[in-house]
């Protein structure tokens, strides 16, 4: 807010403050231009060429997009896999994490111990976690299939069966759900006690309190986890590479979108083509995030009504 009285020394101080402001934010502003804005434009420009690594590129117009959409079955496979993965993994993780947060949010003893235990999986680097899960789920060598046989469930060949490999990736994505659970727990703890007491007077039914009081109050945390979850899921890479490599074994069932971009750019060195794939991903994610934010107006409640 501009101050009403502007004395001379004060405006000199303000100039100095503004200069400091630019200097302190300077490196980031450089990054914003050099590492975000310009590269995005360059990606778009590259996507209109046949850029490789040897020859000077030719302008090819929309040829890459045409090839991707009409003649590249791998694109549709990767898009399908990634979309299914995201659509299942993100909501599932949110729901399970929320349930976990509710269990934790009740003034039980030893919550700190559970918090710590639930947090641990998210410390494991994705490559290491995937290697562990591959053994864990190997028929004959891992305990999961043995345990399933105890309850009479036929055990799948998680990693080698094309019908199952994608679900294995989903399962793997559920392991570090403790982080989201803790975000929800923090949000639940911020619901004021008076609000909860008032709600208790209003309705006896716990599920009504949940639906009309608690959920709206923590909806910003749900939105945050949802958006971040979708953006990250669409870019899942390490897990898919460990299980399926650049070909998405078995039979392209774990071929994820970023793996496809990696393959085109750094195995086949079709950088123009890979850039077009990146632009398509950007467009899809932009659309999905826009839709989420648009729909969120109906269910996300901000205290004080701002933002």
């Amino acid at each position: 807010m501009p101050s009403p009285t502007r004395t001379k020394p004060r405006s000199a101080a303000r100039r100095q403050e503004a200069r400091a402001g630019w200097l302190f934010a300077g490196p980031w502003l450089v990054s914003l231009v050099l590492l975000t804005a310009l590269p995005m434009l360059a990606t778009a420009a590259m996507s209109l060429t046949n850029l490789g690594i040897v020859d000077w590129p030719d302008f090819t117009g929309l040829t890459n997009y045409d090839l991707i959409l009409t003649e590249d079955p791998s694109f549709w496979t990767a898009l399908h896999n990634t979309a299914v993965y995201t659509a299942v993994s993100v909501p599932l993780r949110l729901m399970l994490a929320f349930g976990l947060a509710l269990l934790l949010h009740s003034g039980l003893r030893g919550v700190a111990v559970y918090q710590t235990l639930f947090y641990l999986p998210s410390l494991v680097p994705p490559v290491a976690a995937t290697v562990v899960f591959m053994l864990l789920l190997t028929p004959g060598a891992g305990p999961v299939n043995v345990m399933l046989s105890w309850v009479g469930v036929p055990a799948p060949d998680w990693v080698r069966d094309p019908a199952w490999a994608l679900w294995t990736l989903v399962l793997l994505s559920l392991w570090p759900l403790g982080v989201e659970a803790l975000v929800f727990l923090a949000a639940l703890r911020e619901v004021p006690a008076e609000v909860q007491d008032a709600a208790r007077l209003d309705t006896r039914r716990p599920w009504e309190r949940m639906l009309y009081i608690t959920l709206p109050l923590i909806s910003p945390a749900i939105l945050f986890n949802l958006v971040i979850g979708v953006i990250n899921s669409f870019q899942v890479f390490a897990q898919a590479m460990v299980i399926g490599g650049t070909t998405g074994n078995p039979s392209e069932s774990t071929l994820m979108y970023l793996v496809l971009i990696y393959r085109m750019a750094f195995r086949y060195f079709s950088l123009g083509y890979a850039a077009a794939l990146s632009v398509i991903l950007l467009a899809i994610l932009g659309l999905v995030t826009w839709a989420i934010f648009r729909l969120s107006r109906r269910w996300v409640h901000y205290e004080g009504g701002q933002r």
Partner: protein
Amino acid sequence: MTARGPGVRRRPRAWLTAVLRHAALIAVAALLMLPFYWMLVSALKSRGQIFARPLQWWPDPPVWSNLVAVLDYPGFPYWLLLGNTLFYAGMVTLGTVLSCAAAGYSFACLRWRGRDTLFAATVATLLIPAIATFLPTYLIWARLGLTGTYWPLILPAYLGNAFFIFMLRQFFLGIPRELFDAARMDGAGELRIFLQIALPIVRPALIVVAVFTTLYTWHDFFGPLIYLQDPADFPLSVGLFAFRSQRTTEWALSMTAALYTTLPLVLLFALASGYFLRGARIAKF
């Protein structure tokens, strides 16, 4: 649940709910700990024990020598990989904390034209997938002849990171402006105000940033996989991946390698668990 008159004894019910909750939480915890357990157990097995029938829930006998064998196993030079990872994570963390503290402070506490627009742009970049800017950036580093080095992986951290700038700004906003204006009245320079007044106040938040940057950098796989070529330069994540791709049957040693890749982070968590858990409280729009 149906008939709940005023005379219903509430205490036993509360007690029962608590027991049920604990039972559910313990079950979830056990499920989440199972992969850890299996990593540990399998790390102590011989090649035969991994596929032994019936399944060995505890290795009989434990092959303790695995714990040492992997350290100088060809294809997984642990100490070298660990050193690379420490260097990588350390340099990125230092840069991220410095640059994000400065930018976050500027966006929160200093008044300059265009600030709010540029901050909005900063938040917007959170929604841009990294791949949308990756390929041209890669080409520039390649043109500069710096692929195959850590420069492309480390240098950008010294320019900032949108998420942590956003987060630190929230913390700087909590400092009353009068504090800065008073310091200015006393003739303190802008740099001194930042270093001696603002930074000490947000110290816990800086540690949160440091801890999470270390974690993310340790986990990072895509960047090092693409930019580094010489296996002697790999960080642990890529080293483990390379080891797995070459020796697909060495399950026990893979588990030991996975264990050693994770262990330093568990150590970090043990030292700074409060800051990790605090991170969850901050992650909101």
